[in-house]
């Protein structure tokens, strides 16, 4: 496969799964600038890791692994590994979820807020569950057992529901 075809394939795959990146960026970063940096970092790392992609696995599983690892490291280090100037021609625009035209529904806002309050790993778990990933796939992405996934999801869901209940009652 030549370079252009390889690039086209990559872009198509990214295009088909771009929602994953946006949601991860919105969950792990508070401001637009950081979200854009993180999105660029994720796409760059996906491209970099592309040669290691094993077609026996689902693309989304592999993509989630890379995206979440980059997001968690980005969040923990509070900085990007690449200077933004190096990526200036690969600008990715991610608006604030509250910006006009973006998700403005109160429940959506609350859900995003409650997710952002979770610990990094719980956040990843909840994102995957909300994305309707099976317990098996979540366990493959995160590297914990399916039983553990089930128990932890159950606890995280309870936390989210409790937060909704408390907020609505107040």
């Amino acid at each position, binding site marked *: 496969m030549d370079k252009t075809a390889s690039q086209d394939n990559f872009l198509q795959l990214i295009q088909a799964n771009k929602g994953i990146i946006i949601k991860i960026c919105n969950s792990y970063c508070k401001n637009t600038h950081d979200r854009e940096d993180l999105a660029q970092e994720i796409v760059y790392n996906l491209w970099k890791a592309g040669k290691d992609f094993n077609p026996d696995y689902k693309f989304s599983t592999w993509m989630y692994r890379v995206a979440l690892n980059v997001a968690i490291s980005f969040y923990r280090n509070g900085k990007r590994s690449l200077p933004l100037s190096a990526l200036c021609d690969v600008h990715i625009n991610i608006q604030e979820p509250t910006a006009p035209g973006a998700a403005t529904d109160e429940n959506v806002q609350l859900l995003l807020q409650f997710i952002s309050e979770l610990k990094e*790993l719980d956040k990843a778990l909840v994102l995957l569950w909300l994305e309707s990933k099976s317990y098996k796939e979540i366990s493959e992405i995160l590297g914990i057992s399916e039983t553990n996934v089930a*128990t932890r999801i159950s606890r995280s869901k309870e936390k989210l529901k409790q937060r909704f209940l408390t907020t609505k009652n107040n």
Partner: protein
Amino acid sequence: MLDIELNAIWKQYDEKLEQARLLNLQSWALNLQSFEMHQKLKVNSTLGKLANYKIVLVVLGIAWVFLLGFLVLHSLVWSKVFFVVSVSAIAVITFVAVVVYIRQVMLLKDISNTDSVIKAQEKLSRLQTGTIRIARILFLQSPFYCTWFLTVDMIRGNPLAFWLITVPVFLLFGVLSIWLFFNINIKNAHKKWFQLLFSSREWTALLEAQAFYNEIEDFKKELDIK
């Protein structure tokens, strides 16, 4: 609230994202040229820099061990017994530190974002907390820097200085280095002496890495289903 309601809110979020055209096609127009440039910049990434830094330390460490070994082999006479013992001890401790560094470089090379989240993040946290292990080992060398220059003739010529100055200083450094070896631990990171030894930035990063490592360990534990 039911699970289905949470899912419905998430679906709503999906729809809003699509409606808002946040996922603009043009904004994803990545070009191969840029990516190739980024590939070249790989060495400038944080992990790349760290790996290079550690490789340089490994090379310098090995060179230092060889130099010390060479000096020891050419000093095997009774009059230089202090030099031989001290330099040998420094060489052995440096060698151990180099081995730890090599393991860290291997760990660095083994870190991949395509690993499962837990595996990749665990390796990163282990790498960060591992730097403290090297500091502990290297402190053990300190007493031998107080004795390498001694000779049998020096002691014979001035035994009082040897027993009243050199020996107490050696013992002091010995006790201190052993104490540090056992006490340089992330559990003591809040103590003043620890903060004096390590810069605050380094200390904060270590604490955060350890806290996250504990979080990972906790996350891996199977929970009871209630």
